């Protein structure tokens, strides 16, 4: 897979290798030193303070502050606590977690262990979608290497801290990436999202406090602890610190993962992707995946950070950037998106289950000039307000930003 650091980055945080790091390579590059320092020199709350100070926001889509999330779980007394790495990456157009899983599996093991030490967790899970066969192989191998060499298991690095991580495979369900649905899935059930609150940090796997973080979020943990929160905040914008792995695809010359400062512009990403294919004219980009929004020519200079996109009524989401040219059919793309959500709806709640088929019928009527866009938006808005999980809320953004073109 093509993965590059944007030229404006002096030193990438995540894309620091071009091959898979086996245990030896990882250790040669300073791997597991941070874990050792953490276990022997720091108190759990000192680690949480560092993560809070870094202002790292969750990279799975919802951009919740990671330090605050860890702190919730750390504060609770419980017989068990869990840490889950969400590697179910299913948001259409997103493939950055796959790069991390395939290239830096040990950085995830190290980060999950650091998280467990900080919040008092005694067991971890890496939940990978079954379609990611290569990622599964690499992570499985890395787990074995870590166990065989004393980086996981009993009395890690002779620190007195013991911790286990197990792999779980999903397969063929988008809603499984929703954190509570993922927890249900680990419990061996159908992946129906749970009602929130209580949030997983308070009541998660088997009812115990559970930290659940995205792969890319976790990939930032070791660099932050190693180099400090201030170093991390040199990257990105004031309100969105750090870098982001943008999954760039579509009608461009070079698709791939690009690591850039949060706040990089769409134009800069397009240049890094070597421009539009066959010199076609840029029409728009779908940012944030199927549940994201369309961004147009007049917004090419918009910085791609969490706050700027939110202000513009859009979302950065997972950081997927799908470039469309004048020849690409946006109309049929929108129908594809609605059909995707209809198919992936778990059916637990009425607005989403009944809403999507109706939305599609209305969209078809709209294309035949039989109804107005505002009629569709009324339904999308009701779904947004009343659906149990974000899947049912997801139609609003692509529809709204498409109609506003």
């Amino acid at each position, binding site marked *: 897979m093509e993965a590059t650091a944007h030229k404006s980055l002096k030193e990438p945080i995540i894309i620091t290798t071009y091959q898979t790091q086996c245990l030896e390579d990882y250790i040669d590059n300073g791997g597991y030193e941070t874990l050792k320092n953490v276990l022997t020199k720091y108190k759990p709350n000192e680690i949480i303070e560092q993560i809070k100070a870094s202002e790292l926001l969750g990279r799975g889509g919802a951009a919740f502050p990671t330090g605050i999330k860890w702190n919730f779980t750390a504060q609770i007394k419980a017989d068990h606590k869990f840490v889950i790495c969400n590697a179910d990456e299913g948001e259409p157009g997103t493939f950055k977690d796959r790069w991390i899983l395939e290239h830096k599996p040990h950085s995830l093991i190290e980060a999950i262990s650091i998280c467990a030490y900080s919040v008092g967790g005694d067991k971890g899970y890496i939940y990978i979608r079954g379609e990611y066969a290569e990622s599964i192989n690499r992570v499985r191998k890395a787990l074995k290497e870590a166990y065989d060499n004393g980086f996981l298991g009993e009395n890690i690095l002779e620190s007195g801290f013991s911790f286990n991580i197990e792999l779980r495979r999903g397969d063929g369900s988008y809603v499984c990436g929703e954190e509570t649905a993922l927890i249900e899935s680990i419990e061996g059930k159908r992946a129906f999202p749970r009602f929130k609150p209580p949030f997983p940090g308070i009541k998660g796997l088997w009812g115990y406090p559970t930290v659940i973080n995205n792969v890319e979020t976790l990939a930032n943990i070791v660099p932050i602890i190693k180099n400090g929160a201030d170093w991390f905040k040199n990257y990105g914008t004031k309100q969105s610190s750090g870098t982001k792995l943008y999954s760039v695809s579509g009608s461009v010359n070079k698709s791939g993962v690009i690591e850039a400062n949060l706040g990089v512009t769409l134009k800069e990403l397009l240049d890094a992707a070597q421009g539009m294919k066959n010199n076609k004219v840029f029409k728009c980009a779908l940012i944030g995946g199927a549940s994201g929004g369309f961004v147009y020519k007049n917004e090419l200079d918009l910085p791609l950070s969490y706050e700027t996109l939110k202000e513009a009524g859009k979302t950065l989401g997972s950081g*997927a950037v799908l470039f469309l040219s004048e020849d690409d059919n946006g109309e049929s793309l929108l129908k594809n998106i609605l059909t995707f959500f209809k198919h992936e709806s778990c059916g637990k709640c009425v607005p989403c289950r009944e809403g999507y088929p109706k939305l599609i019928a209305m969209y078809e009527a709209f294309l035949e000039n039989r109804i107005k866009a505002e009629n569709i938006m009324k339904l999308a808005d009701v779904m947004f307000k009343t659906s149990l999980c974000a899947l049912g809320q997801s139609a609003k953004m692509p529809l709204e930003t498409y109609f506003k073109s």
Partner: protein
Amino acid sequence: MDIENILKKYSKDKSYLLEIMHDAKESKENRSLDLNDLKVISKYLNINLSAAYGAATFYSAFSLKLQAKYIIRVCSSTVCHIKKSYDILLFLKSLLNCDDDNLSKDGLFAVSEVGCLGLCDISPSMMINNQVYGNLDENSIKRIVEELKNGSNGT
């Protein structure tokens, strides 16, 4: 490996349900689960048969219907849609003479359309069992299918 041997790899922890189902599916020539598998698995994990059945019918990776030696999953989401994945799907179905259940005439292939496979950098893409294929066109598809039919690519 038969189901009894697969169970030996796992403790009676309910969270192994999907893992066991994955292994059971992989061990079958036609890559589908049957009711008997679910009975054995649910008894082992001490869960209701209905719970195992519920899970097996929720995740589209599992099927209680007859599948095939080669399961072809054609990505149909956003990026691949833009790159004309629907044409790829139709081409495959006609190349393989698929019936209404999307099984090929020779019974070797089962074709389905799936959500994003995360292979957007090599779109249009598909998976056959655990192998990924990208930058597809009619010629490459013909070649891949031929190779599988001749058994030169055992995935």
